[in-house]
């Protein structure tokens, strides 16, 4: 049986861009669940400081991160010389996902890797496959 993913929660303490309700609900669920987890005040601050903890997180194997946009998280770690493994990292985005969605993903022992790999861009709506099929 493979090891359970580690859980990392970012509180985004120094900004109000993540909904307070979502942050608090996710943290409360983590505390109620009794699972081991890592909580950090602010990944941005740690990245700027090149905190060695980031390297250790990036080397820990399967990792679920409750924070913000996967693209931002990827490069915050990278700029602290702690590149996250693309196939072992799942980022839950508390800026857009509900607390229920984030907690459900955390409780799922399987990793759904979602860090962007390469220069991805979303094509205009009229060029998406569904639109093309309709046209």
């Amino acid at each position, binding site marked *: 049986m493979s090891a359970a993913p580690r859980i990392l929660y970012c509180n985004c303490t*120094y900004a109000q861009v993540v909904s307070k309700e979502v942050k608090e609900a996710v*943290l409360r669920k983590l505390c109620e669940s009794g699972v*081991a987890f890592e*909580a950090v005040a602010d990944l941005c601050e740690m990245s700027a400081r090149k905190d060695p903890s980031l390297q250790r997180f990036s080397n820990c194997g399967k990792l679920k991160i409750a924070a913000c946009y996967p693209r931002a998280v990827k490069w915050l770690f990278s700029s602290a010389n702690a590149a996250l493994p693309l196939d072992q990292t799942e980022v839950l985005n508390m800026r857009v996902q509900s607390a229920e969605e984030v907690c459900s993903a955390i409780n799922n022992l399987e990793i759904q890797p979602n860090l962007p*790999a*390469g*220069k991805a861009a979303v094509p*205009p709506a009229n060029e998406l496959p569904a639109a093309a099929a309709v046209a």
Partner: protein
Amino acid sequence: MSLNQALHLVLYEGAGAEALTPQSRLAAMTTLLDRGYAVSRTNGDIALVQNRHTVVMVLGQFANGNLPPVQQPGVTIRFQDISGLDGAQLAAQVEAFRAETSSPKHGEWKPWFPVIDYDRCTNCMQCLSFCLFGVYGVDTNQRIQVQNHDNCKTNCPACSRVCPEAAIMFPKYKAGPINGDVVSDADLQREKMKIDISALLGGDVYQMLRERSERAKSRFSKERDADKALKERQKCLVKLAQSGEIPAEVLMALPSPEEIQRRAQEAKAKAEAALAKQ
């Protein structure tokens, strides 16, 4: 930017400690995170935690006096019984240990700085030549990098606006793609349009500012009216703030036109030198 190892906290509920209630666990976590600390919550495995940090404070309900064994050379570790402590008392204990170990203090700087998406960056050096505050530099391979995070002006995303590839993020920005959201083709078109408009207007916003200031200066040299000069500059800055979403306080804090010119030339020379070595 302090590179000292930050104090790491462990909320320990393994052997030798009583389990916390979910409510007290949440209260402790919230208290510590709000004060800028990182916390590991563990039921055991304290050896792993010790290996990862050089300054560790282990918090738990150790009222029975059975502390977990600690044998870890090179690690400064302290056990703190938190039985009966309220949030303020817990924070005071942690803060005292932080000061004692000279670990960095948190929260004195809002972490606002550019983060480069190297999947998108083409190393064009526009950001380096644009930023007047010395945030950017190049590494030994002449690759653009963020070197002086602290120099960045809080809430100013101006450099991300000049990036033709939307490769510069500010994770704490309100909107995408600057906040790290996926870059759409429409975003790229918008970024390109901004560059074109800027070029039509005669360069970047600093260039606009310089030209405007020069025009104002020649007028004011005739009029010798310092108040008018100041008003003119303020008007110009407000316009820039409105058009580019650059916080007014950032623009108002810009140095004199002469100093802007000097810094802009310096940044441009740095960018050109880096490009020449590529």
